[in-house]
């Protein structure tokens, strides 16, 4: 039976409920929500004066009402030690989502820790240590002492390069400015850790070096640009599922033609019409379907190209636009350099591009015509370019990224209304750390070093390589072996004998062992291999700042208690630093100990004021009090001043004194980057890039393609996106997707003797994994698509270790074979296997 909550009534939010600003902590869009809390002993009433909405709740409310919340938006939690009702519902006044809730964000309350309603009881409540052959609870002092002693002993003997670190670099849950600063100050300030990697990739690098090296930051426009564009170009992004409310609230209105008045107001006499959209994706997605429904098929051009051939398509567009003169000559002259060099280097004919991409020449020309042909009267066409993992985790990341930016730059579409060339993003952003220059470029390929036996201690912050890395099967095999060496050694000494324990661990390390420490909010798969697990608080259990995909910075206010002893990552980092300082002092290394000073933070706000406020561009204008007052709309980074005082000259502030905490002046932000035609380079000019096509770039990919039958394309799905770590304990989600699906063409399934819901093995020379078949008539033959990063079937097991020159992984170009394991198990028999596409 399909999961039903059997809930026919929810407590009513009383008029006196407390209201808190919340930004959804799952994806980059950062939808605005409000959390309402009130004492668990009572509820409001249906009369207007008895409820928060001031309306008669004994009446049916209209569609799209703000006066309703779903059972998933409700819970009972602890607040300052007392039971309170909690409702977290979308905020109609937030310009990002205008009251829309995605199927992730609308479950924030239900995915909160509640002993009262038995939700998310998986959450970590105590520090855990490996003791007597299993993980056992302990005190913070005990756990941190053990971590500090082992870490300090290793550093004292082998140097900082023996400490390996995996850490998030983003905003939202498991990140945010407070926590990236806390971890950053520890590993890049007090220490200079070189062997460090980011949560979703095996090195410490940007996923979008390409655009940055051209002088163009990747989040350069605003969401309103999607309402103003003549043409939207979507590359490797399935926005309806992975930036849901950005797509629904800002793209769809333009595709429907309902933003024409806004365009006229902005652009005067320039001709305007509903947007057209070019979608570059080998797979037909629900995004394509929704665009066709709203804009009509004539206004949607889906270029279902051969996987990994995007680069040559963009070069063909670039060449064609340059030949036709569909370029912004004055902009190129004033604000860029190396245009002619790039035109020469990237020259490719439409015919050649058609051959490689498998697209028709007519479609390639149609696309660039929609993008760049001047409008009636000669006005420049406004095109917005958006890209995500199809490009970022695809073939030849660096050059492909640059090839797309070349097109946007040549057509004058950066820093202008209705333009932009932006990544769509995964998490919100929230990066504030001391310089990472010592890491180098290319950065160390940390996973391969660990597989190769390097590293003695591994600190893991909010990531789970076992689920979300490439070459995952090999990684897990070696990682388990190395951490087991330490576990066995720990089993052999009494836990209470600290000196003996530290010696046993360091001796085991000398024999190839690895001591692993995991900081997370939930038990993870890699955590099963770890020796110490430290419990962290998440968004809403702490105050947390982040920015979304248009650099909109907000503060999520703390509205509930963190579970048990858990605490914010920034404070865990600080307490770890305090312990390292103490231990280094004890072992007579005063000079090293002194480097761990400056971690006397008591609250996350202390970490924010020490980090963001002092070190980020415009940070001197930003305080918690001002962010609180600016609610769920916040401001767009960088801050340039305060409304009363007006914008002042921007620039990185170092050491400016923080404002008084009661000061609630409005912060002035930046709607679009580069609106003045000045870019991130010494001379202020953006560079065009030479980015010639060179086939499947990552080592081994071409051979894998030739050897195996199916493309194992991979990505996300609507219900589970940036929320999977909590979804594993959510009944609605696990009822719908007990196993990762693999979309397959029905004819391919027939050939392999497969029925819907069967469990299949996907295998190649890198490893093997499992998935549940999902017959998909729109899937191309021999092109499967598997749900990525799912705990009951890890797609990364079959992804090769091949990366680009800057160690960016290539998940998308993976080929493998598929065979049946078993008939559909009991747990999938209630599932619907009908098409995801909306039918009018």
């Amino acid at each position: 039976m399909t999961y039903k909550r059997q809930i026919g009534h929810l407590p009513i939010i009383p008029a006196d409920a407390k209201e808190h600003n919340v930004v959804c902590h799952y994806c980059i869009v950062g939808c605005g929500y409000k959390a309402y809390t009130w004492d668990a002993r009572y509820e409001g009433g249906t009369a207007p004066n008895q409820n928060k909405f001031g309306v008669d709740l004994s009446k049916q409310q209209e569609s799209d009402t703000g006066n309703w919340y779903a059972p998933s938006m409700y819970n009972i939690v602890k607040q300052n030690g007392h039971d309170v009702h909690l409702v977290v519902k979308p905020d109609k006044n937030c310009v990002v989502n205008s009251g829309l809730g995605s199927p992730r964000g609308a479950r924030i309350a239900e995915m909160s820790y509640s002993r009262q309603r038995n939700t998310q009881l998986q959450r970590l409540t105590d520090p855990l240590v490996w003791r007597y052959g299993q993980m056992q609870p302990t005190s913070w002092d005990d756990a941190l002492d053990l971590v500090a002693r082992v870490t300090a002993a290793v550093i004292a003997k082998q140097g900082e390069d023996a400490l390996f670190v995996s850490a998030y670099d983003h905003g939202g849950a498991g990140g945010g400015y407070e926590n990236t600063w806390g971890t950053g100050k520890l590993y890049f300030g007090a220490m200079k850790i070189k062997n460090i990697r980011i949560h979703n990739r095996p090195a410490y690098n940007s996923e979008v070096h390409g655009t940055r090296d051209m002088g163009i930051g990747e989040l350069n426009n605003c969401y309103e640009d999607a309402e103003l564009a003549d043409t939207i170009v979507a590359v490797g992004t399935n926005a309806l599922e992975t930036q849901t409310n950005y797509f629904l609230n800002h793209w769809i209105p333009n595709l429907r033609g309902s933003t024409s008045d806004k365009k006229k107001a902005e652009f005067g006499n320039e001709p305007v019409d509903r947007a057209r959209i070019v979608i570059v994706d080998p797979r037909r997605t629900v995004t394509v379907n929704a665009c066709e429904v709203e804009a009509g098929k004539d206004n949607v051009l889906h270029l279902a190209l051969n996987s990994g051939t995007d680069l040559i398509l963009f070069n063909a567009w670039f060449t064609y636009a340059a030949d036709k003169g569909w370029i912004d000559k004055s902009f190129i002259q004033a604000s860029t350099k190396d245009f002619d060099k790039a035109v020469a280097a990237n020259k490719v004919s439409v015919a050649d591009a058609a051959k490689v991409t498998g697209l028709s020449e007519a479609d390639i020309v149609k696309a660039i015509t929609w993008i760049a042909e001047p409008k009636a009267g000669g006005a420049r066409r406004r095109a917005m370019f958006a890209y995500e993992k199809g490009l970022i985790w695809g073939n030849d990341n660096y050059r492909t990224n640059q090839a797309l930016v070349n097109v946007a730059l040549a057509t004058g579409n950066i820093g202008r209304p209705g333009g932009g060339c932006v990544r769509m993003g995964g998490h919100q952003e929230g990066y504030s750390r001391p310089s990472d220059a010592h890491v180098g470029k290319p950065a160390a390929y940390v996973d391969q070093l660990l597989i190769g036996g390097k590293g003695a201690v591994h600190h893991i912050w909010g990531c789970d390589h076992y689920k979300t890395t490439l070459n995952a099967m090999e990684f897990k095999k070696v990682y388990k072996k190395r951490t087991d060496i330490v576990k066995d050694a720990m089993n052999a000494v009494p836990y209470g004998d600290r000196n003996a324990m530290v010696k046993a661990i360091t001796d085991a390390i000398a024999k190839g062992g690895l001591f692993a420490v995991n900081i997370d909010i939930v038990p993870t798969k890699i955590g099963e291999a770890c020796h110490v697990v430290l419990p962290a608080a998440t968004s809403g259990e702490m105050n947390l700042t982040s920015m979304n995909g248009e650099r909109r910075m907000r503060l999520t206010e703390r509205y509930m208690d963190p579970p048990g002893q858990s605490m914010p990552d920034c404070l865990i980092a600080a307490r770890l630093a305090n312990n390292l300082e103490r231990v280094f002092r004890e072992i007579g290394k005063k000079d090293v100990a002194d480097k761990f000073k400056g971690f006397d933070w008591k609250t996350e706000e202390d970490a924010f004021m020490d980090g963001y406020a002092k070190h980020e561009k415009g940070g001197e204008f930003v305080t918690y009090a001002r962010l609180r007052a600016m609610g769920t709309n916040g401001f767009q980074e960088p801050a340039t001043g305060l409304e009363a005082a007006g914008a002042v000259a921007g620039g990185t502030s170092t050491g400016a004194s923080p404002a008084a905490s009661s000061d609630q002046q409005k912060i002035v932000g930046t709607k679009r980057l580069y609106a003045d035609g000045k870019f991130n380079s010494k001379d202020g000019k953006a560079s065009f890039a030479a980015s010639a096509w060179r086939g499947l770039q990552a080592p081994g990919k071409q051979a894998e393609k030739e050897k195996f039958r199916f493309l194992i394309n991979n990505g996300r799905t609507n219900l589970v996106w940036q929320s999977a770590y909590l979804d594993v304990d959510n009944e609605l989600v696990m009822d719908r997707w007990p196993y990762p699906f693999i979309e397959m063409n029905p004819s391919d399934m027939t050939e392999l003797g497969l029925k819907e819901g069967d469990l299949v093995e996907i295998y190649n020379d890198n490893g093997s994994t499992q998935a549940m078949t999902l017959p998909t008539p729109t899937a191309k033959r021999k092109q499967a698509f598997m749900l990525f990063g799912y705990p009951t079937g890890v797609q990364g097991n079959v992804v090769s270790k091949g990366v680009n020159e800057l160690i960016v992984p290539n998940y998308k170009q993976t080929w493998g074979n598929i065979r049946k394991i078993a008939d559909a198990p009991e747990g999938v028999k209630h599932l619907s296997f009908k098409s995801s596409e909306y039918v009018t």
Partner: protein
Amino acid sequence: MKSCDKLVDAGRRHFLSSAGAMTAAAAAVSVLSTEAKADQAPSTLIRYPKSRLGNVADLKVNEPLAVNYPDDDAPGVLIKLGQRVVGGVGADGDIVGFTTVCPHKGFPLNYVASDKTMNCPGHYSRFDCEKGGQQIWGQATQNLPQYTLRIDEKGDIYAEGVDELLYGRLSNVL
């Protein structure tokens, strides 16, 4: 006084996590196991009306019959699917009833007979009428609220409950 306060607090905690909670009807439900939830009658505190929605003779295979339940402001449908389904009633086990208000934003759902799904023009959500209203794909955080149906000896079809909260009301019975 202090220990006394603690006792009161502990008492309240127990109260809230036991099945007898009054304010938190939802809390009461959540402590039951998944199995119990699936198999037992709705255990909310709502007293649902038993409403006659039609007669089996009114139904043609795969043609939805517009109804309202639990009251006139709550539109829904009865459908004779033509094939036995889990939760279906009647001699053929194929009669089901659902709300037609999308549980995401309250837009009216369209029944698509070709694949027996409900489709939302607001944000493209789809629900499978043959699978207990499971959301095939969409923006809602609930599967589609389904009616508990009973058919009497005359073939009259009665609705006697709903298994999820209806959009736009914080109590299914206003």
